[in-house]
């Protein structure tokens, strides 16, 4: 089997399976850790609090924005750019149509795609630089945080390098790095892409029950 056949074939299957099963397993273990019933009289509803927790945290709290400029700018540049790339870049839409869902959708025009890519790269670099230069994140970061940043960057970089769609090697390199990313995903901090929903909802429910605007 050639490297190309491996990357396009069995390795893709393995990566996809590990990703789906791993994410599902991790979420199940979290939820299955058990719930403690709260016997105190609630002041307000938990469900409303949970929803408010999930939605409200997209914006910084009152008075915090001034101290979080770098986090906010870099964080949103990266996440919004990545989201746009992942779901609306033409090569990706083609891939989803051909290899995953059987249907596609309207991709971004090329200039918007380039803009999204620039934003994503800029955001990720700023975030990682903050991680290594800010004494707070320097203290609390672990190897997993750096690995996740580097791996994400490599996924994006290899994608960018293959943009001309001119060489199989470059496309395969991108695919390979993506497959590594998917296998690493469930074991790492990258899971925050799913667990943020649980965590925000849990805090929102907990404090919402106490009548506090989360």
């Amino acid at each position, binding site marked *: 089997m050639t490297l190309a056949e491996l990357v396009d074939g069995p390795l893709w299957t393995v990566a996809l399976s590990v990703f789906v099963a791993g994410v599902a397993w991790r979420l199940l273990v979290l939820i299955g850790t058990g719930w403690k019933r709260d016997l105190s009289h609630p002041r307000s509803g938990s469900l409303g609090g949970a929803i408010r927790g999930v939605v409200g945290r997209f914006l910084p709290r009152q008075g915090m924005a001034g101290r979080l400029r770098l986090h906010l700018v870099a964080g949103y540049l990266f996440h919004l750019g990545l989201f746009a790339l992942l779901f609306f870049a033409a090569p990706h839409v083609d891939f989803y149509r051909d290899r995953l869902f059987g249907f596609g959708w309207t991709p971004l025009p090329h200039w918007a795609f380039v803009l999204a*890519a620039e934003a994503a790269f800029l955001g990720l670099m700023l975030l990682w630089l903050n991680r290594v230069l800010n004494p707070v994140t320097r203290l609390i970061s672990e190897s997993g945080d750096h690995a996740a940043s580097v791996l994400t960057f490599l996924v994006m970089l290899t994608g960018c*390098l293959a943009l001309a769609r001119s*060489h199989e090697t470059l496309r395969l390199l991108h695919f390979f790095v993506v497959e590594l990313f998917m296998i690493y995903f469930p074991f790492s901090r990258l899971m925050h892409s799913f667990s943020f929903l649980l965590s925000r909802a849990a805090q929102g429910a907990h404090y919402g029950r106490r009548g506090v605007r989360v």
Partner: protein
Amino acid sequence: MNAYGLLWGLLLALLSTAAQAQNDTPPQSGIWIPNPGADLWKAVRQRGQPEPSTTQVQGLDSNQLINVAGEKFRDWRRERFIRYAAYLLAGVPVVILIFHLLHGAMKLEPSGRKLLRFDLYDRVAHWLLATVFLFLAFTGLLMLFGRFVIVPWLGLDAFSPIASASKEGHNLFGPLFLVALLWVFLRFVARNLPAWRDVVWLLKGGGVLGGEHPSAGFFNGGEKLWFWSLAVFGLLLSLSGLLLDFPSYAPSRELLVLALVVHGAAAVILVAFSFGHIYMGTAGVEGTLEGMRDGTVDANWARQHHDQWYDEMVREGRLEALPEAQENRVDETGTGQLGEGRT
């Protein structure tokens, strides 16, 4: 004659060779044999034409059958630019190495007391620009020298994807360089305004070749020279780069060729300069990297290299009161001057 002076000399040499490339006169021959197609080709190449040719086709340069400027550029790039760029980019590190072996690093006797020099945003901006610059330099140099360095080593089949990847990467990261450059410029410009003491510093060669260390403020003359070179050449790189990234917006092909020349020349000059900057920031002067890595510098380092800034800090009480872990404080004013301490 310091490293920066050397680089300026080489820059002038480079520019003159570029200028020379514009005047190519045909060689003299003994017997004149008329070429039957000479007139046709003269017209095609638009030599000695009273007016430019016309055509029914609408579009950029559609009245040109053969692009002359592009051919001239190709010649210049192959015969002169690549050659001299190679000399410069190989020569500068050699000069630096020789200097380092002869002179050694500028040593520091640490006092153990720290002074906050660069806050978090200063450092993030600097390293953002540095990483983008290095990536662009790497991919750019791959495209410039790849044919002569990579191909003999890995072969054409291997170089093909490398070249394609370099081009895509270079084109995508290019605009980020402009963003990072603007950010760095705005953050650091107030600290880089030229003063007479900087001229004096330069004339004394930074004290590098003997004599006492000349006086300096927050940044010394050499650093300010680097800053303004980065600003000027960086801007040239960005503007020419943007044009090259979006060629369909160029009003003429000549402008694109000019952009290529400017881009190449500015890039090579800046890369050569950056060797000096990187050297000075790492091996060249002990205690410097800490400033850009952690934000703090040793008090003795400050007193040794930036005495006037050091004096100002002492006057403002920044040295005595400052505990070790203060480098996270963000400078809200954006002028590089810190506000009052909170504790």
